[in-house]
């Protein structure tokens, strides 16, 4: 996988250590002085130890502990990162509140117990404890949501990366196709190379890097969290506003009086206005234009064409080909017909001639306005990636001597689970099974071990009292100030992700979904 494009020192990027531990040597080459080997490291490469790397000409630690900080007072503006300022001490705001994330907290020797950091701090008068660690997850994967109407491939089709199976196509959801990538069976249950490629794929997806996936019997898709999907080389622009039938329902009234018939072309359901309930309610006369496909209910047609990358996720490039016939008993010369896709990206306006043949004509402004409005109501198409993993026995043992009590504490909403400071959704049922939006974690939050398995930060935050009650390693609690004194200088500091709730905010019993995991 390629080196991430984030510039050093920028918000979300690692701290440039070139001046402290090395020297720039021109051509982007950096010399690392962290040990006597004095590696000269090319951009995008790591030194002999694998601990230091050259990222865009700057020497960075590959796995620094990440501290997230937010302004101490509400409404106080964040000071932008200004590494060039002489007196800048690397902190976003002096006196800022700090949350220690699990990123870089340490997994080199998983034998270490208790968890690498158990941090005590006070927030709003309550003593809180955050147990910070990096979990090694063999049972993990990502669920990918790709906003597209295009047919990416059949459900259950195998998805490959670099020639190896890494997941499968799962359900088609509203305006989106879901993919499941990873999981223990690909990571460790298949071939050796399959496991390695799956691990690389998951790591890249979680670290928001682009990944090319090939779907058996379907498309090639470039997926990058937070970016538009690229399907067979073409970037997707918009999610559809709805299926063809829904589009008819939404805009029927706005078309009334400007057109006599509208066909909304869609891979799932193609809508025909005058046959549709929406057209009938407006007393629109039947237009006698029959489309291909299988009629579901009046004005709603399945399979007017094959799936593809044409109009509305079909393979249609000339929309007139889906017209089966024009009924001479019902249609009339001069009939105004609009054909439009469910994203408004494709539209054709026609008028029937004397022989009832559709003849393309200039689209009147009121009709074009509605076509534009379809586009305006489509949200930008994105890929979203949720990491999903279960916090198993050994990880919990780093928190408490009695691991099941941690599980219960999470279920009872006494303990909040965050990953890199990002809120997680904790699945109901057994175990601590979490899902997190990878876009809400700091940059480069995920790593891997050769098992292969993913390494992800995870933090458990609870009142100090609750920590003692669940049999926590109370002797190992370090005061936040002491920890800052010890590792503060070596840690990477990041501005708090504004959308994430502050993890130290005390939990209230029975706070519902806002407790152990907040899904938002």
């Amino acid at each position, binding site marked *: 996988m390629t080196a991430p494009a984030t510039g050093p020192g920028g918000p979300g990027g690692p701290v440039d250590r070139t001046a402290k531990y090395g020297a720039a040597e021109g051509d982007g080459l950096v010399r690392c*002085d962290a040990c006597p*080997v004095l590696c000269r490291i*090319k951009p995008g490469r790591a030194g002999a130890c694998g601990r230091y790397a050259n990222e865009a000409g700057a020497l960075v630690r590959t796995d620094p502990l990440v501290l997230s900080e937010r302004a101490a007072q509400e409404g106080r503006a964040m000071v932008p990162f200004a590494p060039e300022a002489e007196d800048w001490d690397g902190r976003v705001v002096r006196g800022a509140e700090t949350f220690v994330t699990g990123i870089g*907290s*340490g997994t080199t020797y998983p034998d270490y117990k208790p968890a690498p950091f158990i941090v005590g701090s006070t927030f709003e008068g309550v003593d809180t404890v955050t147990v910070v660690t990096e979990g090694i997850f063999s049972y993990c994967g990502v669920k990918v949501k790709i906003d597209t109407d295009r047919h990416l491939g059949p459900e259950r089709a195998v998805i490959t990366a670099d020639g190896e199976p890494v997941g499968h196509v799962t359900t088609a959801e509203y305006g989106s196709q879901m993919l499941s990538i990873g999981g223990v069976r690909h990571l*460790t249950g298949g071939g*050796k190379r399959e496991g*390695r490629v799956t691990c690389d794929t998951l790591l890249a997806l979680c670290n928001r890097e682009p990944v090319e996936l090939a779907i058996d019997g379907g498309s090639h898709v470039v997926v990058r969290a937070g970016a538009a999907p690229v399907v067979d080389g073409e970037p997707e622009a918009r999610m559809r506003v709805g299926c063809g039938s829904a589009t008819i329902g939404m805009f029927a009234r706005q078309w009334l009086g400007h057109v006599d018939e509208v066909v909304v072309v869609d891979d799932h359901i193609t809508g025909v206005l005058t046959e549709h309930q929406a057209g009938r309610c407006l007393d629109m006369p039947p237009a006698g234009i029959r489309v291909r496909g299988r009629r579901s209910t009046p004005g709603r047609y399945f399979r007017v064409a094959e799936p593809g990358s044409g109009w509305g996720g079909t393979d249609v490039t000339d929309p007139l080909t889906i017209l089966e016939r024009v009924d001479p008993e019902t249609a009339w010369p001069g009939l105004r017909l609009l054909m439009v896709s469910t994203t408004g990206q494709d539209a054709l306006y026609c008028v029937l001639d004397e022989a009832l043949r559709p003849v393309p004509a200039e689209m009147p402004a009121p009709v074009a306005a509605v076509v534009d409005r379809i586009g305006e109501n489509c949200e930008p198409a994105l890929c979203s990636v949720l990491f999903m993993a279960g916090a198993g026995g050994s990880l919990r043992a780093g928190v408490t001597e009695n691991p099941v009590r941690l599980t219960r504490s999470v279920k009872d909403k006494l303990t909040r689970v965050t990953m890199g400071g990002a809120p997680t959704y904790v699945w109901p049922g057994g175990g601590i099974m979490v899902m997190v939006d990878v876009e809400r974690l700091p940059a480069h939050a995920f790593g891997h071990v050769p*098992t292969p398995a993913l390494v992800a930060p995870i933090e458990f935050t609870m009142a100090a009292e609750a920590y003692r009650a669940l049999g926590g390693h109370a002797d190992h609690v370090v005061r936040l100030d002491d920890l800052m004194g010890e590792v503060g200088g*070596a840690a990477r500091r990041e501005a708090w992700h504004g959308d994430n709730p502050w993890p130290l905010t005390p939990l209230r019993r029975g706070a519902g979904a806002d407790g152990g995991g907040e899904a938002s």
Partner: protein
Amino acid sequence: MTAAVETVRGAGAQAALLPDGRLHLQEGPIDLVIGAEGAGEAVRRAYTSAARRFGGLLAGLVGELPGLRAWLGDTPPIFADPVAGRMLAATWPHRARGLSPMAAVAGAVADAVLAATMEEPGLAKAWVNDGGDIAFHLTPGTTMRVALVPDPAVARAVGTVAVDAASPVRGVATSGAGGRSFSLGIADSVTVLAGSAAAADAAATLIADAVDVDDPSIARRPARELDPDTDLGDRPVTVSVGPLAPGAIAAALDAGEAVARAMIEEGTIAAACLVLRGEARTIGITPAGAIGNEEREGQGWNRGSASW
């Protein structure tokens, strides 16, 4: 305790006792995990010797780096540093194959630290694991069992080899395209048993380089483009390997096997196991009682063309 803490303390060797009683030594790119068995205070004293030997070891090697990175020619270079000397001794017999003493660096470090522990008289057994290249010390009645993991990406042993004190084998090393060092070949892994970890390291590197075939799915780049100080110069190192036809896999393994057989003939190694895409070849003589294939499971090893 953690990587973050080490960074604050900056350069210098680190020593830590792992919770299971093994010793961890680290400085720069060197990570050693050391285990020992013995009576009374022997283990603790052996660890103390190892830690003492480790101090300054990296600095000594760094002082010789320019010479260690130079390709071996007709005249042996002269090194003052003893670890550099071990590297030269392990690589010199292979000079016609083309390599620098750096091909044996990991194994030589393991041998050097192991030698320090062996000064302890009460020690029954000791081993030094330098990122997978292992040097071990045995006394009569003890056995070193080495689990063979053909692919570092999948922690699954496909068999174990037991080496007893009567065997001349004292080192095992693994090399491959997926490792931390560059490879000229495409092997997933090549594991070698030899008289020392340094000898095994150098041989594994060369055999892994030889497991190769011309195939459009293999991407290569001049080593210098990736690391300006590499001992490989502009030689094309493997960057990635795509899908391979069964014929290509067999051809690449044939090429590696030829080199391994030659080394066994020369007496520089005892045995080798070559793995590429699930296909494995085991090559080696089996001195009675010295190296025996105790357990076999999994696909790869059963398809081997020879037994250990």
